[in-house]
């Protein structure tokens, strides 16, 4: 399990960084938002991993069970997921409007059009 | 009259000009009423200043405290000898200049006269703030108000040249005051813990001379209004302003506020003893000396009369700066007296230059040959002013120069003595020919033109200031007493 511990976190970090990379690097605004989602979801995975106890169960109290995984991280991430979808929805709304007024959702096209103006 | 306490009088010297602004703006429609407001305000202020002088002579201490912004940082005022000199000069000359301006501005058909008189009043109000400030912070505030209120006067003409001049003016004055002066004030506050003007200086014993020396450099360069080289450029640039502005502000109020500040700082922040110990004092003294000579040399090459006078001012200001840096009682006395003497002399010259401009539309020295026959009064006044600037009897200028020389002697500064001598010679070379040539006969074959003098208010004004140059030679006593009491 010791190996898995480090391995798990490292892979999660790789996931985060892939998301981060998509955010910075994509030219397409929708893909940027998807990257943002990936980035955030990976952070959620990190949080949930932190709360796990080997051999624990879901934190729904029941007789005969003494070892529960940390319920607090679950609560935090529930909140964070909601925040994430709210951000995505708002971001998409802006993208829709950008598409209407610029006719494109590609970053460099937008820059080019702004320069023209 | 009981309600008119000295404290109230002191505050009124600043408030009356501000109230006058309101009056000027309200009555802007009618020239006569507007100018009457200015005249009345300046009369009141003059009366107040004379009242204060009597109070001061009676030995009554006057202190006013407006408010304290933070501990040790307050807006407050105190009546004191050096400030009294400055206030008297400014009070007398404001009235005179208003008269002069009425004649000049009307016959020159200037625009925006309402703004002109309003800014003028604000500038004078802040001069009194500078004069009576009891600490460096208060002085700094009014110093900046003075800069800002004179900016519209400099750019009055609204031409591209005026804009450029205005930008130079503001750039140098604001720039030096924020980058150096404010920095020096902060440093002083940090080292000494106070900014109060105190006899003998504020720095505690054992203050590092290196820090003190650095602060002195910052002060000397930071007070851009003292126009020490290389921060003198704003003064010639400001000559684009109408002549009354050049006369009062750039021969008297603004530049004198600069050297006044330096004298104050030298005497009451550093103290003469500490000043003597500083490693940078001598270097700055030499710079001031160099400034005197170089400015005179530049002045010789100027054909534009106002420009020539401006460089002459730069040179004369450095006299006073040098007087402070000599760090002797006589130097300070001479410097303080020179504030007044130079003011009367130089304003006379500017008045004359303006009078020539409005009457004969001539601006260059080379055009002035023989005009003494047309404008005898003006050119006679010019001659008196010239003598005063050079420092020759029978004019007041000879006294202040005498004290500066004896200050240099006390301090064993042969270099400065030499500078003063040489500069007097240079003064003769670039100023005296003007009135003398004016009375040369015009070129052969040209009929001597009829007398055509400046408008009467202007003529009266310049005669008065010329007369004052002579009077101050005969009765220098009150002025001397004030100046000599500064360091006691």
């Amino acid at each position, binding site marked *: *399990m010791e190996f*898995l*511990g*480090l391995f*798990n*976190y*490292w*892979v*999660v970090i790789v*996931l985060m*960084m*892939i*998301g981060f*990379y*998509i955010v*910075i690097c994509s*030219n*397409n605004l*929708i*893909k940027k938002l998807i990257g943002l989602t990936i980035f955030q*979801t990976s952070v*959620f*995975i990190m949080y*949930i*991993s932190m*709360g*796990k106890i*080997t051999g*624990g*169960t*879901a*934190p*729904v*109290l029941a007789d005969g069970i003494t070892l*529960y*995984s*940390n319920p*607090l991280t*679950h609560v935090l*991430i*529930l909140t964070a*997921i*909601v*925040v*994430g*979808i*709210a*951000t*995505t*929805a*708002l971001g*998409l*709304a*802006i*993208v*829709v*409007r950008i598409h*209407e007024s610029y006719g494109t*959702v*590609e970053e460099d096209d937008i820059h080019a059009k702004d320069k023209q103006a | 009259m009981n309600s008119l306490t000295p404290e109230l009088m002191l505050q009124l010297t600043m408030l009356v000009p501000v109230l006058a602004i309101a009056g000027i703006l309200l009555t802007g429609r009618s020239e006569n009423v507007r100018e009457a407001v200015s005249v009345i305000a300046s009369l009141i202020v003059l009366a107040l200043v004379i009242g204060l002088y009597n109070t001061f002579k009676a030995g009554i201490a006057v202190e006013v405290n407006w408010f304290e912004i933070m501990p040790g940082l307050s807006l407050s005022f105190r009546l004191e000898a050096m400030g009294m000199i400055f206030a008297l000069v400014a009070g007398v000359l404001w009235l005179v200049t208003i008269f002069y301006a009425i004649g000049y501005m009307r016959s020159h058909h200037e625009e925006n006269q309402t703004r002109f008189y309003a800014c003028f009043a604000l500038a004078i109000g802040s001069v009194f703030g500078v004069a009576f400030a009891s600490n460096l912070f208060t002085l700094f505030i009014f110093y900046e108000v003075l800069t800002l209120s004179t900016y519209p006067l400099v750019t009055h003409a609204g031409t591209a040249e005026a804009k450029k001049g205005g930008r130079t003016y503001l750039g140098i004055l604001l720039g030096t005051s924020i980058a150096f002066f404010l920095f020096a004030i902060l440093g002083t506050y940090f080292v000494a813990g106070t900014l109060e003007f105190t006899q003998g200086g504020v720095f505690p014993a054992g203050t590092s001379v290196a820090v003190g020396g650095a602060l002195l450099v910052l002060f000397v360069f930071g007070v851009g209004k003292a126009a020490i080289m290389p921060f003198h450029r704003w003064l010639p640039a400001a000559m684009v302003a109408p002549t009354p502005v050049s006369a009062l502000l750039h021969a008297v109020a603004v530049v004198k506020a600069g050297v006044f500040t330096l004298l104050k700082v030298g005497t009451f922040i550093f103290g003469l003893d500490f000043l003597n110990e500083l490693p940078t004092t001598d270097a700055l003294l030499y710079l001031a000396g160099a400034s005197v000579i170089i400015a005179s040399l530049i002045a010789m090459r100027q054909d534009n009369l106002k420009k020539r006078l401006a460089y002459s001012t730069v040179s004369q200001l450095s006299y006073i700066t040098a007087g402070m840096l000599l760090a002797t009682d006589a130097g300070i006395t001479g410097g303080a007296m020179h504030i007044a003497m130079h003011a009367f002399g130089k304003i006379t010259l500017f008045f004359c230059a303006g009078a020539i401009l409005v009457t004969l539309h001539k601006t260059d020295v080379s055009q002035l040959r023989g005009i003494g026959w047309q404008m005898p009064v003006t050119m006679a006044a010019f001659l008196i002013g010239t003598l005063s600037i050079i420092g020759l009897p029978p004019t007041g200028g000879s006294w202040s120069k005498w004290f500066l020389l004896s200050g240099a002697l006390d301090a064993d500064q042969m270099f400065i003595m030499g500078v003063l001598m040489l500069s007097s010679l240079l003064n003769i070379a670039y100023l005296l020919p003007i009135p003398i040539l004016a009375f040369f006969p015009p070129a052969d074959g040209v009929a001597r033109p009829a007398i055509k003098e400046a408008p009467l208010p202007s003529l009266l004004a310049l005669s008065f200031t010329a007369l004052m140059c002579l009077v101050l030679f005969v009765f220098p006593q009150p002025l001397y007493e004030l100046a000599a009491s500064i360091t006691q």
Partner: protein
Amino acid sequence: MESFVHVVIILMLVTTAIAIVRVKDLFAVTMLAGIYGLLSASFFVLMDAHDVAFTEAAVGAGISTLLVLTTLSMTGRFEKASVKPQADYRPVLALVLVTVTGALLIYGTQDMPGFGTADAPVQTHVVPRYLNDSATEIGIPNVVASILASYRGYDTFGEVVVIFTAGIGVLAMVMSNATKMPVVQTALMSDHVVLRIVSKMLIPLIMLFALYVQFHGEYGPGGGFQAGVIFASAFILYAMLFGLTAARNVVNHTLVQLLSALGVLLYGSVGVVAMINGGNFLDYNFLSDDPVAGQMLGILLVELGVGITVASVMIIIFFTFTARSQKEGEAD
């Protein structure tokens, strides 16, 4: 076995993420992102986080995919191929930045308590109180629900407000300027008769399930948020099959907006009532004479508030998006 599944899932996550970077077809990217959501939901199940898994599945694989697809229908499905003649420096810069950030994070993990350890600070501080005392203090078995709605109920209030804010934002930005909606409405899948019939039967069941999730949250995974999402998806399904106008006839647009506000207000007023009764904001103990009964009542009400707001905001967002896209379709 568990650790094997664990490794497989995270490797699949990595594969999906890399695929998302490479693929240019945004439709595929969206689907992959949905898969990414589903995979992380499975991972959460493995981590004993059933509530989170439920939510992530509903959001990551459900709602957000749907929203992105709706947006794509307006903006076009392909990412522009990079045709810049000069070398594009951005990927390199991004790579450097990402590497540095990642390296810092990996550096940071070195002193972290090992994965799954029971004596890590996260397990020994603060949390034991929830696990040991919530049964007596709150009286419901699902500890996540206790914390969510009571111990940290204020965070959840914030969360509802976040959702409400997003709804307001979408309305403010995308709401059509015209007061009347376009009349001609073509449902996305109106041709599929079988689908329509099956769905018509399914929709009531979905709603019933939503209600179950809503009110069962105290005992098992579920709660207001998940219920709200499910409830909204029933409507969205209806709208997709029978057209927006039909859906609007069922639920009026203004009404949905009011409901979204009412959900927040319901949550807020529970807190205010507690205040009026002499407790602190959101102190459910003061809702009833019996503290535990008060807690139960409070949690029930706030979960309901969450459910109402989430469902109505989701419906608002979906409706405004599709209305916009159809309007745009006409304009073309």
